[in-house]
């Protein structure tokens, strides 16, 4: 019976692999920032990347939607497959890729526009709404999903920059959701937030798991333990260990992982 469940689980994860990275190397000029990373990210799960500062976890995250393309000196080799298709294939348009793989940044960065226009930005660009009613609906749905609707429904025309930090970050999440992505990348989304706002965003991440595959970079191991099902530990550009979150935090295989989670390195 035990074996059956185990097998079942392996089967299902194998079927639902959303992103697969094979032998990924990243160079910043002469600096070899990411070395030989192989990882499989499952659909409808939250995957956390943890590791000390400068270990390459954010760099790797930014490879998944090719945000590193905007940096001149950055070079990526190896394969990253999204639904089995290589995203670094010359045929792939990074602009379209980013519509499928949304991103939330470390510091809340709402545009200096109204709350409504912030959320409507993506749908407008990609022509997701047929008319104004449609757009209104998308905006409302996204804000509801981001648990922000009740706070802002009466002031959709107020500037997004005038809100509190936590609200701004949830607005950025709503903005990312509105584009209907398949994967949501979050680069330390709570590092600029207070504990209450952090709790709200974490709750939100857990709900988002039902619709997307979420990849979150975090410095807080407690946060990784709270929100993720899978955890990857990066150290000095290497992916040291990748496993179920429970296992990483209770029974790590690699001594470096153990040192990090027990606070001895990093």
């Amino acid at each position, binding site marked *: 019976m035990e074996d059956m469940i185990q097998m079942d689980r392996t089967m299902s994860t194998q079927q639902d692999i959303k992103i697969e990275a094979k032998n990924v190397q990243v160079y910043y000029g002469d600096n070899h920032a990411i070395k030989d990373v192989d990882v499989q990210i499952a659909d409808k799960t939250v995957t956390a990347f943890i590791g000390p500062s400068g270990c390459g976890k954010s760099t790797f995250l930014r490879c998944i*939607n090719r945000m590193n393309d905007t940096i001149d000196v950055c070079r990526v080799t190896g394969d990253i497959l999204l639904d089995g298709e290589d995203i670094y294939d010359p045929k792939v348009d990074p602009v379209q890729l980013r519509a499928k793989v*949304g991103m939330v940044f470390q510091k809340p960065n709402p*545009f200096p526009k109204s709350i409504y226009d912030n959320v409507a930005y993506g749908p407008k660009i990609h022509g997701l709404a047929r008319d104004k009613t449609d757009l209104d609906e998308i905006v409302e749905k996204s804000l509801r999903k981001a648990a922000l609707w009740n706070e802002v429904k009466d002031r959709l025309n107020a500037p997004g920059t005038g809100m509190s930090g936590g609200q701004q970050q949830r607005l950025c999440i709503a903005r990312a959701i509105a584009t209907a992505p398949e994967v949501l990348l979050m680069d330390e989304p709570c590092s600029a937030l207070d504990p209450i706002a952090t709790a709200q965003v974490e709750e939100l991440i857990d709900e988002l798991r039902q619709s997307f595959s979420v990849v979150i970079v975090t410095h807080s191991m407690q946060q990784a333990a709270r929100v993720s099902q899978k955890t990857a530990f990066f150290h000095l550009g290497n992916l040291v260990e990748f496993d179920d979150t429970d296992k990483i935090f209770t029974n790590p295989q690699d001594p470096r992982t153990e040192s990090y989670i027990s606070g001895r390195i990093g």
Partner: protein
Amino acid sequence: MQSLTIPLLVILGLTITGYFLAKTRALQVAGGDIRKLVSLPKQHALNTVLATAIPPLAAIVLFSLYRRLAEAEGSWLFTLVVIALAVTGFALSLIGIKQESRARTFAERWIMGLLIFASTIAIMTTVGIVFSMLFETFNFFEQYDWRDFFFSANWSPNFRGNSDLGILPLLWGTLYISFIALLFAVPIGLFAAIYLSEYASSRMRSVAKPAIEILAGIPTIVYGLFALVTVGPFLRDYFASPMGLGQSASSVMTAGLVMGVMLIPFVSSLSDDIINAVPQAMRDGSFGLGATKSETIRQVVIPAALPGIVGAVLLAASRAIGETMIVVLGAGAAARLSLNPFEAMTTVTVKIVSQLTGDTDFASPETLVAFALGLTLFVITLGLNVFALFIVRKYREQYE
């Protein structure tokens, strides 16, 4: 000038002696141990220098503002007062050197005084300019009806008096030429700025930006020559005459285009700085949502930078309105109210020059009108500048 030379030499001598005396004396009161002093010897020295030099120099400046300097030169009493001030400052600061005296604080107060003085001069000059214009303008309106000045569409100064001095044709010329200049400079400058800040590689930028800014260093008279010998005849031969719009080489279009070239670096350089000030996080946010580069620039970067860009354009506009040389050589000197851009017209600034350089009596309305014109122009550009400042300031609050 002889009688001012003596006090100035005394002040110079006292400050130099004071510098060295104060250093020695500070060490002396400390018994050679510098750590016993609250302020360092060099701070005592600086305090002595400032206390010796500033009060008498300030007295000279104040006196010359109050009376004419010539009177000061003749007045022995004044010379004595100046020297007495220098000696008092010198003596008091030297006597004041004790172990616990705070020369540093005093010296910094003197320096703050100097800084305040410098900024006051800048502001007072503006006030002075306005007042000198105001008085002459007032004289002008005593001799000439203000309604005729502001509302008459006729400008024909007559040296024997009885002239028509309506500002409207001149104002129209000024605004028309400035409008054409901005129509030319704003898109080109803005597009250049967008290219430089968003597309150009850092090497390209380091070459192209100074190259564009060279335009700002060309004297306007050289632009005027360019308008006179190149642009004017070109526009006449290839546009104006074939289209039957006139035979004049000097035209609104000539002056407007050349002035536009002059304004390009103003618009591009300021806009480039402002676009660069838009945080990278804004662009990342937009790229992260799958926006293309041009969508990002059009919908995020430019709107975020817009108030600053408007400020840049308004500054360029006030430059255009005040420009004289390009207009004299490019647009001619005929006051005219016309819509045809290939016709010669003139501006307020050109007429100020020509009214003041004539042989007419200085007290006649034909000459005094220059001050009324100047004041009107000043009010317009001041308004534009205030508006630009207001917008730029508002822009600073856009994102933290």
